[in-house]
């Protein structure tokens, strides 16, 4: 179980990995995530499922090398290796129905999880406009994949090396100014990006959903480490989400809770650099 069948470096520090997890592949719906562990005493890492194949039992994730565990996963695991544990699919699937015109926004790593969402939205007859944003052209990935499941795909780069120069919100503002009648916005990416999208659409009164990736341990509602105030009430991202109304998220609290282990993270990276030779 959990044997890695493919591994690609999509951009600097962005890794696509596919492994065998038949039960997860069979049950997966757009918007859900999984939790994986490298070794027996590793951390449990929550990652959004980027793709799945019921026939082959394959599940694909795309992850960013941000901390110790993702670094270890990227550097120590290759095709043929087995992951110690993978559990899922977790969380409530993204609400899919025929909304009309939906703008789906993916920022950086968030481009991967919007793929199954665009696919599902298109299948039920929505017009899907995708906005995908990267820092620069070198970091761009999955452009063709997103194009295949969207009626229109807009690319933005912070430095203007590809597509529109600016952020995803630059492109969203442009669409709005051009008079596009948008029925729904779905945004996945760094918290700051999701927050900015939500703040932008709030006065426009366009329902805007975001997918949160808070710190969690079990992913089944047991630990409450992922808790966050949504619309004045504490919710557990793992079971009540990960999708929430972006206009109701307490973004300041989200920012604080994401940084809870910053000190410890630098400690383990330093510790292991000397001991096991991670780069």
């Amino acid at each position: 179980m959990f044997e890695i069948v493919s591994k690609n470096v999509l951009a600097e520090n962005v890794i696509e990995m596919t492994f065998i997890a038949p039960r997860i592949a069979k049950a997966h719906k757009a918007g859900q995530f999984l939790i994986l562990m490298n070794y027996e005493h590793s951390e449990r890492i929550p990652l959004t499922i980027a793709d799945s194949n019921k026939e082959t039992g394959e599940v694909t994730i795309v992850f960013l090398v941000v901390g110790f565990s993702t670094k270890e996963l990227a550097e120590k695991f290759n095709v043929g290796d087995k992951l110690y544990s993978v559990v899922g699919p977790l969380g409530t699937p993204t609400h899919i129905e025929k909304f009309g015109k939906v703008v789906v926004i993916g920022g950086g790593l968030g481009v991967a999880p919007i793929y199954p969402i665009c696919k599902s939205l298109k299948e039920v007859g929505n017009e899907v406009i995708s906005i995908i944003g990267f820092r620069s052209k070198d970091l761009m990935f999955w452009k063709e994949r997103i194009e295949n499941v969207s009626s229109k795909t807009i690319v933005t780069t912070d430095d203007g090396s590809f597509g529109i120069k600016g952020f995803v919100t630059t492109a969203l503002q442009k669409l709005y100014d051009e008079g596009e009648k948008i029925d729904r916005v779905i945004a996945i990416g760094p918290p700051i990006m999701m927050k900015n999208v939500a703040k932008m659409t709030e006065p426009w009164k366009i329902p805007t959903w975001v997918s949160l990736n808070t710190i969690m341990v079990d992913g089944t509602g047991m630990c409450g480490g992922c808790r966050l105030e949504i619309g004045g009430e504490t919710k557990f991202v793992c079971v009540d989400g990960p999708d929430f109304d972006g206009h109701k998220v307490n973004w300041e609290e989200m920012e604080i809770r994401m940084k809870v282990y910053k000190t410890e993270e630098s400690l383990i990276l330093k510790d292991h650099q000397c001991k096991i030779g991670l780069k």
Partner: protein
Amino acid sequence: MQEKIDIAKLGGVEEGKPKKPRPKLPRKEIACQDPKERIKNFNEVALGYTPEEAVYEAMRCLECPRPRCVVACPVHIDIPTFVGLIARGKFAEAAKDIRKYNSLPAVCGRVCPQENLCEAACILNDTNPGNPVAIGRLERFSADYLLSKENGNSVTPQIIHKTPYKVAVIGSGPSGLTCAAKLAKMGHTVHLFEALHKAGGVMMYGIPEFRLPKEIVQKEINYVKSLGVQVETNCIVGKTVPIDEIMEEYDAVYIGSGAGFPNMMKIPGENLGGIYSANEFLTRVNLMRAYEFPKTATPIRKPKRGVVVGAGFTAFDVVRIMLRLGAEHAEIVYRRTRKEMPGRGEEIEHSEEEGAVIRELTNPVRFIGDENGFVKAVEVQKMELGEPDSSGRRKPIPVPNSNFIIETDLVVIAIGQTPNVLIPSNLKGLSTRWGSVINVNRETYMTTVPKVFAGGDAITGAATVILAIRAATEASSAIDNFLRDPQRKWYPPEISEKR
């Protein structure tokens, strides 16, 4: 090979000779790590009896013909028989005899509240108050002995008759493991599903290493596996595999999913950094071994001044962990008094020996954060006790204008757990109360959904390991009856029309 036990040298009963009990001897204390030493490590606090000590203690038992301890034991272990076997040097046989009644003796010997159960009923209390036979310690001694001899390779007891029936057991905690073991012994095919990456439920994530070593838990699970139980970890029923699929594939389903959903205070500031639910704190430390960080990869915030809200088993486990993580000060904040504390006497005593402070009649009203969003203080108010409430305990009432501040850098909320809603919300027709506690017929353990049984904390809310084991034991008999009943008659719980 069995090692030779020289029972005469140990002071026990030799083969063919009658036992001359020595009830008047004082009860043998169990050796413990010194409090000053043990707060620097996570190793087990109580060290267990040596063979000499076990035989000494076993020789105190009168082996009563009508033993009250057996009646008091929730699963009715034949206590005089196993204690008698220890007195005769048959340590492994003693544990094997216990296994007829309880599949997890090494666990129960450690965490069962014997002082309120078998040992409270022991006849020696009548003549020598406070000196009952140390049944729990003897249970632990024999179970540890057997597990060390088996070395993870239990000899499967002969399973007499293999039936064609298949049972799915959901959850691998005390109740799920017990039900699975019993059903396997009855000859049924059992598949045990566990959501986490390790089997054992609360015994792995909840109870700390220094009270229940994880190696012991895994050895007990190996025994259950040796009975033919197939254990599938990383599988969340209702997510990884749909409940409908389970319902189709198995002849009966047992829900032993425990009480894993944390209750929170719902007061301002509770989402600040440095505030944990007991579940998260314990899971990080126990299951993920965060106390070994950075050798292991899961981090935990290390406290200087820790505050635990609540005073149950869990709260005491948490406060003791805080001290082991290096806290200079760690305290329990409880809204009632010592008298009402649900924690076990021994745990309270051990905690105080280790330096934990208990602050009675105090209740948090809000948490105060620093400029980085981490908790820096708790505002509390004094309480006083009023009339008894529904739990029979006197109800705490706030004292006006009594608020004050306790400085802290780590708070753990340990005010109880309720069952997870995952299964109830995914299984149509399953009746629950208080949102997630599953209703069952108390005789048959049948739920409102045909062929679905439930037991343990999932039907009571958070309780003890031994009560979960009792429910699972009784449920396993009910499941066996149901499977063998040609008509598969169903006796659901009576649910009143009113919610």
